């Protein structure tokens, strides 16, 4: 019963943040601000949907003692960790590449990196 409520809550939070991430991707003005929307909110939302799956696997395992559900939880945990780490690194790499290729942050009050790097 508690597991049911937790699963619904986590799935709702995940869907909400994923939707707002995509809205931000479509709405924000330049690459860097778009990256703010996608890299944080999509990662957060996807990790929360994965947490819902982990709780579902754990609760079903405690209910039925079927090892398949425990394997489901462990593998989903590994996928969530891999997702969180790789997304942060990937967005950092894209931001660095974009700045090196000459895309400036177009609405910007200050750009300290441009002063250092021609």
């Amino acid at each position, binding site marked *: 019963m508690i597991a049911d409520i937790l699963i619904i809550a986590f799935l709702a939070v995940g869907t909400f943040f994923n939707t707002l991430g995509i809205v931000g991707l479509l709405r924000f003005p330049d690459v860097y601000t778009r990256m703010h929307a996608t890299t944080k909110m999509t990662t957060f939302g996807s990790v929360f949907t994965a947490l819902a799956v982990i709780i579902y696997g754990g609760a079903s395992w405690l209910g039925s003692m079927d090892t398949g559900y425990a394997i489901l939880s462990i593998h989903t945990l590994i996928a969530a960790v891999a997702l969180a780490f790789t997304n942060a690194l990937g967005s*950092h790499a894209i931001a660095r590449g974009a700045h090196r290729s000459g895309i400036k942050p177009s609405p910007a009050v200050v750009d300290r990196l441009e002063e250092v790097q021609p």
Partner: protein
Amino acid sequence: MIAFCVTFLLVFCIYLLLTAGSGTIGFWSASELVAGAGLGIVVAGITRKFLCRSDNYRMANPLRLLLIPVYLLGPFLVEVTLANIDVAGRVITGRIRPGIIRVTSELKTDLGIFMLANSITLTPGTITVDIEEKGNDLFVHKINIMPGDEQKEAVPARELFSIADIPAWIRRIAE
């Protein structure tokens, strides 16, 4: 030799996690254990130089490894949640004031800089764009710069976070 052992243990543990529940010795079958050990030796022989680049095994200390989950589930999770709610509000209202600022970190090791850059990328409205290799300064794109911050030459890393002192936690873990 220590590098080889550390890499082998890491690879073997990941293999065991991925194949848990396959048999009766603990949770694993005998063939999976043998295959994991063989693959671990091969992979550790090839990649030991990548994992342990400096001759410094501070991170093999179990206490430091135990601190990492505490950090991820405690202050880091709070910061990430606050940051996501903040950015969600900015997506809906559209009030942004972006710019790239220089952030001083005062961390010295590569791992510390790596963890701080990743924490900044996942937390409050900030993305690490580039790193100055000499002084270990970070260039951070911030979605909402406080009025007055654009005049400063550099901002200390502590001021990027709202509640928890993330740089102190990272210093405790990695240095």
